[in-house]
Structures are given as structure tokens and as C-alpha cells.
């Protein structure tokens, strides 16, 4: 596996410490004829509360040290059913497939023999985001598989009075090679559960892998292709009613008035509810359509509150204002400002990026049943613990009475790292006796999203006589997402280290460097993670700037970058490979242009080249994108390719078209008629992904393509048009007007 599709968590700077100590804290929990091996799943910043495993997880023997909070399990039942209970959620990134591969490889079972269940919230923060799934699971899952295998083999060998070294495993069967005797895993599971857990199980030599590193089909394909996969949207709890909501369209506003009787008069409408903050209304009905009609009939009147006058211009002006004045110094090496001040040649450029919505295909939804004695929540979430905790807080129920049932996610992209929709659902559900499923309309989903922030970046360089950087300053102006999302992670200086992705952390190094951050929180809007987070923002700026410097030096953009990457063989390798595969040095067909970008983000290296044609300045045809990727050891090669393809296309939608705008505090984009998504007939005709063999630990991949999209496309468009693109989206009216001026 490969992969992860989405987003969000803080930077590699605090990437999870999956230490051996943590990984070795596995315990045999199984009983009742089953082996249940629990493993502490290191997740990004794991480990605060330490609750007991939920009773629903099976017959657990309480032989665990108090401090041990397992949140992932391997269950081997007496009937040989093998279940992997995973805390990471599947939202398209292929984590289920990759996890099964890792486990099956070491355990000695067929992938088809492994079933997957979503784990309930465990201790600490279970987060699926930040392209961290593979990075975090690579070691512990193999260790867990190997440990279980060792115990099963030991149990069988004991029964046979044979030497465990003479035993092999295949298809969940232990075979004593000299005699040909065999036992199923299930037959010895109970006995295995009585054995001590090997603290340092022997892992397979990677050269003997039969699954890992070889393309495997996704384990979730069949269910999804047959329409059987259950997403949060598809939950059916007996007796449930359907609600749909309208929150005040202006952040910070409250409900002014409504015609409740008109809504209740609609056939099928059951109730009209208002939340505790008096800023959201829910109409509950027998089915969504009745709820929707009821919501319209309410004719809601809002008190817009203090943000009623915010518009997009307010936000951009505030960001540009941050280009001067005080800022936090986030990273520094040498005295870059002084060098620039005295340099013979300098170059400065300013970049602007818009607010972005997530718009996953599955609109936000959540189902909750709040009872006096407990609460069940069914939803797609990238952060189940917070979903549970918010329900605990609202209902006053003890933690072990609140259960979060994680479902397939129809697109995360960082949106489901937020849990406010769970809070909202529980708040309404506690007002009614029945299970309540809340479905947001697409309009609600887009206008009440939590948005990728808008940013302004300015870079200045001192240049030597060949046009290379001798000193670089970079100022980022924008919000610190982590300050709201996880305040302790804000540095004591007030810096959000997510901003360093693809900014400080790049394949390049500079003789002198200074990164400044001027924090400006967007008024009247809540900002949040988005696929690629800091990397998406940073790479557009840095690779745009490097491209401009190459152009200024009259250098070939690939050659210019090569010269800067002499000390970085992995970066050089991906760049050389993509240049070769894309035919960088071969003549282009008439009317076409190419652009390049190089990156190191989420633990992976990638270089990409886009080949575009622009029949006119606001019409881009992307003929081909090539990408060479070194993401360390590849678990499922085809899924790496799939993530790069999809990540690029996700990024191209935003790069070309997308910008959330506000007028009178209200988001103006309401549905796919005004939130344009790249379509099949606009997608690149061809995306070719080349994987560089590597034995390094796996890097993330779900956000790598997205981060590359804007810079590689902007650089190709710049080559096509002979002008720079410093503002996103690329096809905005703003850029069209600027192009006419420049032209």
C-alpha cells in the first residue's frame, strides 16, 4: 500500500514516531478459541487517554497492562476466519488493501482469507491523514503478522512435537514439511493465544516477498463495483428518520426566525429542531425529500452577525497587508536578508492562492442514536476519537457508552478530519428518541465547508552571476490551521509547522535562508486541512519561483534544477527519469509547451512534467503528464500509480478552476454548477507514472500528486504563454485580465 489519499495532518516535522518500543507492545488478547492479537497502532500523535478496548471487540482476556491501549487487532477465529481490525479508514487511498498485504505477507495467509473491520475509537487520536497511513503501518503490521505466525507455528509444532523451524505456513495453514502434516490456523488459535508474544519476531527478507511490492487488486473493489460498500450515507438503522440542516450562511450569525408551522405541514416532516448555539436548524422527516421541502418551507431568517460584511477582497487585502510588518521567523540559516540587501542581482515574486472547498462526492452526513444509556454514531470520519469525544461531551455519557462505527468514506481530502458535523448530529439526535441520519445538501456541504485557507507568499532571492540562489527569503501570510485544530501543536513562537512542507522541506538547499510567517486568520470563515495541505501551498510557490529564476537565467528549467540538486541523488534520479520519459529534450509538436516540477514532501520524492496546448489564453488542453516517483519501498505499485493519477487530477481541478469567494459573509459557490470539477474530457489524455525502485522506508503518496498539480501546470502554461502565473486559480478572470496587460 501505498497510499493515502488525503490529508492533512501536521508536518513531517512531527511525523509519528513509530518506535520499536511502541510496536512491540503487542498483546495476546484472544480467548474463546480465538487468537486476538492486538497491536498498538502508532498514529500521528497517538496516546493520550487510555481506555479499555470496547467490549464489542470480542472476548478479550484482561491480561493487558493498564497502560496498553490497543486499537488494532488481528483476530484468528477457530473456524479459520481471519479479521484485521483497522483504525485507519478507507477513503479511496487503498489502505485496506495495503494493510491486508502487509499482514498476509508475514502471517502466511492469502489476501482473500482476510476480512477487514473498522476499529472503534481507541486510545489517543486516531487520525487518517497527512499521507501517514503507510508510513505508520509499515513496521507494526508486519511485526504483528510475524508474531502471530510465530505463535501459531509454535502451537502447531508443540502439538506435533516437532521443530518449529521445520514448519511453513501457507494459506492460513501450518505445514510440517518433513511429514506433510498440516493444521489450520484456526485449529491452533486457542492454543497459540496462551503463548508469550515474541517481542522481536523475525521478519521476512524483503527479497522473498510474494505480495508486498507486487501489484495486488484492491480488496474493496468488488463491494464497491457491485454497489454493496456501505458509506456513512448508506447507513440504515431500524427506526431512523432523515434530517437535513441549514446553518446560518454567515459564520457567527444566529437564527432570526422561521415559519415552523409551514415546515410541519409538509407531508412526511416529523420535527423541526434548533441546535444549542441557535445557528443551525434541522428538519426531520421520513425521507430526505420531505426534509428538504420542509427546510425550504421554513423560510429561514438569519441575524448575520459580525461577519456580514466580509467579502473575498477583505481576505486578500488582509493577506497582502501581512507582506510588510512583523512576522515570526520560522526557519533561518545565515543572514539571508543582509545578503539580499547587498546583492548585485535580486529577484522577488508574490504568489496568491484562494480558499478551497473539499467537495467530496459523498456530501457530509452522520447518523446518531442517543439513548439514556448510550449513544451510537455511524459516520465516515478520519478522526474517530474526536467524534466519540464530542458525543461524550454533549450527552454526558461515559466514554464506554459511546460507540463510533466508522464507515467507508466517499472522499475525505481532509474534510473528515473535522468532526463538527458529528457534534451537530449528536446535538440534534439527543432531542429525538429515534436514530437520526443527517444529510447535508450539496449546497450546505459547499457553503458550510471548512476551507483550505487563502495564502499570499512572497519570495526574494539574491542571485550569483549565473543566476543561482545565494540567499533566499520567503514570507508566508495566512492562517495557522493547527492553532484551531490542535492548539498544542502550534510552536511557542506561534508557527504552524505544516507550512514547512515543500517550503523548508524541499529537495534544494540554499547557502542562506529565512522563512517568515505572518499569521492572518481569515475573518468570517473556518479554515482547515485539505489534500496536500502545506505541500500544496508550498510547492506552487517554490517551484513557480525556481522556474522563474531559471527563466531569468536563460537556463533550461530541468538543467537549472539539476544544477541545484547535485547533492540530492534521490531528487536527481526522479528528475532525470521523468525528463527522459517525457522526452524533455525532444522537440515538441507545434503549439505545445512543457513545464516541470520537483518535490520532496510527505516522505516521497517526485518529479513531474506536463505537456500542454493552449489554443487561446483561457483554454488549456493537458496532453500528457509524466511523473517519476521515489516513495521508498513500494507496497502495492499499481495503487501508488493510481494515487498519483488521482492526486494530480484532484489538484488540476483546483489549480485551473477553483476559488471560494464570499460576498456579505456568504460563500458564493453552491453546487457543481459553480464549483467546477475536472471532467473526463478535460483530464490529461495520458498520465504516465514511473516508480523508482527503492529500499527506503515507505513514504506517503496520497497527497504527492495533488501538491504537484498546480506548479507543474502553471510552469507549462507559463512556457506556453510567455507569462508567469502567480495567482490561482490559473483560469480566473483575474489571470485573464493580467494576461491581457502583460500581453
Amino acid at each position, binding site marked *: 500500500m501505498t497510499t493515502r489519499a488525503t490529508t492533512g495532518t501536521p508536518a513531517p516535522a512531527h511525523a509519528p514516531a513509530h518506535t520499536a518500543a511502541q510496536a512491540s507492545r503487542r498483546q495476546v488478547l484472544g480467548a474463546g478459541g480465538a487468537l486476538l492479537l492486538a497491536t498498538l497502532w502508532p498514529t500521528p500523535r497517538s496516546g493520550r487517554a487510555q481506555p479499555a478496548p470496547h467490549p464489542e471487540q470480542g472476548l478479550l482476556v484482561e491480561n493487558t497492562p493498564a497502560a496498553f491501549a490497543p486499537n488494532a487487532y488481528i483476530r484468528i477465529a477457530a473456524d479459520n476466519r481471519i479479521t484485521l481490525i483497522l483504525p485507519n479508514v478507507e477513503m479511496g487511498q487503498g489502505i485496506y488493501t495495503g494493510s491486508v498485504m502487509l499482514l498476509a505477507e508475514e502471517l502466511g495467509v492469502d489476501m482473500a482469507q482476510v476480512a477487514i473491520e473498522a476499529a472503534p475509537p481507541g486510545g489517543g487520536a486516531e487520525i487518517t491523514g497527512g499521507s501517514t497511513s503507510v508510513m505508520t503501518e509499515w513496521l507494526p503490521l508486519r511485526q504483528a503478522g510475524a508474531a502471530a505466525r510465530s505463535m501459531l507455528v509454535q502451537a502447531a509444532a508443540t502439538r506435533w512435537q516437532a521443530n518449529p523451524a521445520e514448519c511453513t505456513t501457507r494459506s492460513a495453514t501450518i505445514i510440517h514439511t518433513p511429514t506433510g502434516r498440516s493444521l489450520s490456523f484456526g485449529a491452533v488459535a486457542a492454543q497459540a493465544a496462551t503463548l508469550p508474544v515474541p517481542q522481536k519476531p523475525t521478519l521476512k527478507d524483503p527479497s522473498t516477498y510474494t505480495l508486498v511490492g507486487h501489484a495486488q487488486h484492491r480488496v474493496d473493489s468488488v463491494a464497491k463495483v*457491485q454497489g454493496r460498500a456501505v458509506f456513512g450515507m448508506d447507513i440504515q438503522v431500524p427506526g431512523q428518520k432523515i434530517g437535513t440542516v441549514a446553518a446560518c450562511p454567515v459564520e457567527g450569525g444566529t437564527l432570526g426566525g422561521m415559519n415552523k408551522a409551514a415546515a410541519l405541514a409538509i407531508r412526511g416532516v416529523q420535527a423541526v429542531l434548533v441546535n444549542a448555539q441557535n445557528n443551525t436548524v434541522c428538519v426531520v422527516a421520513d425521507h430526505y425529500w420531505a426534509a428538504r421541502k420542509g427546510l425550504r418551507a421554513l423560510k429561514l431568517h438569519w441575524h448575520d452577525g459580525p461577519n456580514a460584511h466580509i467579502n473575498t477582497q477583505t481576505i486578500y487585502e488582509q493577506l497582502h497587508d501581512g507582506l510588510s510588518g512583523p512576522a515570526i521567523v520560522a526557519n533561518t540559516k545565515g543572514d539571508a536578508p543582509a545578503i539580499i540587501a547587498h546583492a548585485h542581482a535580486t529577484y522577488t515574486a508574490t504568489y496568491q492562492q484562494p480558499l478551497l472547498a473539499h*467537495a467530496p462526492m459523498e456530501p457530509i452526513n452522520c447518523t446518531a442514536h442517543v439513548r439514556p444509556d448510550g449513544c451510537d454514531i455511524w459516520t465516515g470520519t478520519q478522526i474517530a476519537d474526536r467524534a466519540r469525544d464530542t458525543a461524550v461531551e454533549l450527552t454526558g455519557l461515559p466514554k464506554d457508552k459511546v460507540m463510533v462505527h466508522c464507515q467507508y468514506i466517499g472522499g*475525505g481530502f481532509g474534510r473528515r478530519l473535522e468532526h463538527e458535523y458529528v457534534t451537530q448530529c449528536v446535538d440534534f439526535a439527543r432531542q429525538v428518541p429515534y436514530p437520526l441520519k443527517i444529510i447535508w445538501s450539496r449546497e450546505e456541504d459547499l457553503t458550510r465547508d471548512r476551507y483550505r485557507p487563502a495564502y499570499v507568499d512572497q519570495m526574494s532571492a539574491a542571485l550569483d552571476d549565473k543566476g543561482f540562489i545565494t540567499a533566499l527569503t520567503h514570507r508566508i501570510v495566512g492562517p495557522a490551521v493547527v492553532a484551531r485544530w490542535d492548539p498544542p501543536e502550534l510552536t511557542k513562537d506561534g508557527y504552524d509547522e505544516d507550512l514547512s512542507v515543500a517550503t523548508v522541506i524541499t529537495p534544494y538547499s540554499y547557502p542562506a535562508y529565512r522563512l517568515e510567517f505572518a499569521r492572518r486568520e481569515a475573518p468570517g470563515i473556518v479554515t482547515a486541512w485539505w489534500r496536500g495541505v502545506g505541500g500544496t501551498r508550498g510547492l506552487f510557490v517554490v517551484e513557480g519561483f525556481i522556474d522563474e529564476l531559471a527563466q531569468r537565467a536563460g537556463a533550461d528549467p530541468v538543467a537549472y534544477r539539476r544544477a541545484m540538486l547535485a547533492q540530492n541523488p534521490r531528487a536527481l534520479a526522479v528528475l532525470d527519469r521523468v525528463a527522459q520519459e517525457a522526452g524533455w529534450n525532444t522537440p515538441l509538436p507545434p503549439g505545445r509547451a512543457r513545464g516541470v516540477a520537483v518535490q520532496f514532501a510527505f516522505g516521497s520524492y517526485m518529479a513531474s512534467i506536463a505537456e500542454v496546448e493552449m489554443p487561446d489564453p483561457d483554454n488549456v488542453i493537458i496532453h500528457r503528464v509524466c511523473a517519476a516517483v521515489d516513495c521508498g519501498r513500494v507496497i502495492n505499485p499499481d495503487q501508488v500509480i493510481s494515487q498519483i*493519477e488521482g492526486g494530480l487530477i484532484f489538484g488540476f481541478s483546483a489549480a485551473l478552476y477553483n476559488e471560494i469567494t464570499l460576498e456579505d459573509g456568504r460563500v458564493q459557490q453552491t453546487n457543481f454548477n459553480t464549483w467546477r470539477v475536472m471532467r*473526463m474530457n478535460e483530464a490529461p489524455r*495520458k498520465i504516465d507514472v514511473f516508480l523508482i525502485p527503492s529500499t527506503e522506508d515507505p513514504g506517503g503518496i496520497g497527497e504527492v500528486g495533488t501538491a504537484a498539480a498546480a506548479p507543474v501546470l502553471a510552469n507549462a502554461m507559463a512556457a506556453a504563454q510567455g507569462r508567469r502565473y502567480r495567482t490561482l486559480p490559473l483560469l480566473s478572470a483575474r489571470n485573464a485580465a493580467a494576461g491581457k496587460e502583460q500581453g
Partner: protein
Amino acid sequence: MLSLNINGQPHQVDVDPDTPLLWVLRDVLGMNATKFGCGIAQCGACTVHMNGRAVRACNLPVGLIGEQPISTLEGVDPTDPVVKAVQAAWIALDVVQCGYCQPGQIMAAIALLRTAPHPTDEQIDSALSANLCRCGTYMRIRAAVHHAAGALA
């Protein structure tokens, strides 16, 4: 009471005639393969067949359906050669990511292959560009349609 013919079965539903088929399928009949994505026929996640034609269930009031037969992904005949070829191609090429749009994509592809058994890239773009995918599986969808067409040859 309205009568609907869904997946070969008659269904009586007690809803207003303006109710879109999507919500009758999902919330009244409990058939969840057909997905809600936008409600304005802009994304195609709710694509089903009416008289064999790909239609958007979110924008189809049940009062307009009458006796026209409806078919949804859970009701397609898995032994039908086109259905079989399309689903097999989707699995063989590992098209899906999050998978939420795929029921709509698959229903659109089945309808396409029934009228154009060997579509060109241009014909596939013509038929499937109204179906959104946020994960960006378009190239694999296109390849899978070709793959399915090849299997049907």
C-alpha cells in the same frame, strides 16, 4: 400511492409525485447503491437506467416515471454479458478509489456499451463526462470501458 417498476419488481410508494426517484430508492425502499451527490444532475452519482437509458435519479420526479422500467446497480443482472464485462473490467483495472461515484459511472458505462459496443475515446468522453469523480479515476474508467468492450468482442 404511485406504482413503480424497479429492477423487475413492482413497488407501491406513498410519496408526493415531485419526490425524486433517488430518495424513493434510498430512503423509502432502502436501495442504497444509487448515490446522492448533488441533486441537480451535475455529477451523475445517482445514475440509474430508465428504459435502458442512463438517467439521473436525483432529478427525476417519480410522478413522471409511469410504467417505464427502472434498473439500479443492485438490480442489474450479474450474468448479463455487458454487466459482467463492465464489473470485471472495473475490478481488473482497479478503477475504484473511494468508490462513491462508481455506481453511477458503472451504470453509465453499461448504458453506453449497450448502444456503442466498441466506443472510441471520443465516444466514451461523450457519454461519461457528465459523471464526476473527485478521486480522479477518469483514465482508468476510460480504459476499463475499452477493456469491457474488448471482452465483449
